[in-house]
């Protein structure tokens, strides 16, 4: 498969801080990649360098085989950036049409209004839209040129549940048409359900890279938590089969184990004083937390 995006030994150094540290990453055409990481991990800086908005201090960036600053490359990409508001003095439809005019083969206005769920707002001033609606307008602008590579930097911030649903449905449809999608998000369940590859970045470095399933299985993941009576002691819990760790917060205890099926049986048979029992299968959230903690 051809690489849509190729980063080779890319670093970005601001005055005294290394925002991105010797990053090498190849993203194949037609994949949906989620860049995850805590705030300040270097996700947005990485995206900015791929887009040619920032120049890497070291290393090379190739987008669709070329320079991101090249007009012919830009004709084939689209992006929703953070901290970009709408343009003043233009209506929604006018803003979209303005963007459509920049591209060789723009998508029809009606389609863009539909997928951004802004059909009713077409003749409203863009600046009068709510935060979530402005985000959706940003999505329509990102898609205006029928891009092959789409960048979505924290795309769903401020969107309501319905909009979010439609948004991801559209993104999935785009992915189904072989588009390459690079997204960053704080909502891990979104990344889990959309992405076919997850790259976890921390302190400017890649600390994990794989399918959502692989990322989840890399960490122990499973937890049984309950409110414990006074007779329950840490030592007794640690002695149980497959237990790796015990964590208290007040009377609530979290028992980490590799085999929660055996563990729950042992807890019941051992007549531990338990209330409000919950078993969590490790989600992406837990895996992510564990990875970042390990790296730190």
């Amino acid at each position, binding site marked *: 498969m051809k690489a849509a995006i190729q980063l080779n030994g890319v670093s970005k150094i*601001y005055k005294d801080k290394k925002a991105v540290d010797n990053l090498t990453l190849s993203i194949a055409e037609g994949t949906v990649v989620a860049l995850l990481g805590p705030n300040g991990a270097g996700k947005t800086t990485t995206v900015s360098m791929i*887009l*040619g*908005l*920032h120049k890497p201090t070291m290393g090379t960036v190739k987008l669709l085989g070329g320079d*991101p600053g090249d*007009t*012919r490359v*830009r*004709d084939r*990409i*689209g*992006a929703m*950036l953070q*901290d*970009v*508001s*709408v*343009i*003043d*003095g*233009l209506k929604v439809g*006018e803003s979209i*049409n*303005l*963007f459509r*005019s*920049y*591209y*060789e083969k723009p998508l029809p206005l009606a389609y863009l209004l539909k997928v951004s769920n802004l059909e009713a707002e077409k003749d409203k001033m863009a600046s009068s839209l709510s935060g979530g609606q402005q985000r959706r307008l940003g999505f329509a*602008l990102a898609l205006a*040129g029928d891009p092959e590579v789409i960048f979505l930097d924290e795309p769903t911030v401020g969107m309501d549940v319905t909009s979010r649903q439609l948004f991801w449905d559209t993104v999935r449809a785009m992915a189904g048409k072989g588009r390459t999608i690079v997204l960053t998000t704080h909502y891990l369940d979104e990344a889990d359900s959309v992405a076919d590859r997850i790259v976890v970045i921390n302190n400017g470095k890649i600390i994990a890279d794989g399918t959502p399933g692989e990322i989840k299985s890399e960490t122990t993941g499973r937890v049984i938590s309950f409110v414990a009576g006074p007779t329950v002691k840490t030592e007794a819990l640690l002695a149980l089969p497959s237990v790796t760790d015990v964590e208290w917060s007040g009377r609530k205890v979290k028992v980490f184990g590799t085999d929660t099926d055996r563990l729950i049986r042992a807890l019941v048979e051992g007549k531990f004083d338990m209330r409000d029992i919950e078993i969590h299968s490790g989600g992406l959230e837990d895996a992510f937390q564990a990875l970042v903690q390990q790296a730190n």
Partner: protein
Amino acid sequence: MNQTMLRATVAQCKAELLRTVRNKRFVIFSVIMPVIFYFLFSSTIGDQDIAGTNFNAYYLMSMTCYGIIGASFTTFSMRLARERSQGWIRMLKITPLPSWAYIVSKIGAQALINLFIIVMMFLIGGIGKHIDLPVSTWLSCGAWIWIGGMSFMALGTLFGSMRNPDAVQVISMIVYMGMSVLGGLWMPVTTMSATMQDIAKALPTYRLGQGAWNMLSGGALDWGGIGILAAYVVVFMVVSSYIMRKQEAV
């Protein structure tokens, strides 16, 4: 230049025009105020001679300059500042719109806006006050204000390079009003003290007006005045591009 770039430039230009016309400040400072001021002052001062010409004609040129300068100072600079503070420039950078097309569309739109103000003022003032000038004088005065007036885009760009749109609004308004009064656009410089006249002569606002006033009295363009205006353009262009570059150097 290919089809798409041409289409993009035209669309960008159209968007600039729409944004300007929808801006209340533009309507107030570049359309309503010059017209009202013109009729107010030409009616109170009346039909007398000034600087070798009729006051009504003289003041029509003053107010036309005033309107044009306002369009560059208050609305053009605001559009720039908003685009920058709202991240719009960043967004445009990842589109295939070339930066030259962006600049050309800005200049093209401003040229159309200025032309509109000139034609409007000349029609309203000329008909309303029965100003009788040879066609060649109308054309040469209009052409001078049109071309010379473009130089105020450079100062507008400097205001637009400031980060805070609210500050841009206040500062550009102060400079606009200050320069218009001191440059003799509101009251002719001949009514001012010698010191004030010296100050006026150093200002670009005076130099824009002077070109037109000279032509009314049958004089030619003053190359010294053009030189001063051009010097302002160069300085403002250099300073604003330095500021913008510094802001973007990350």
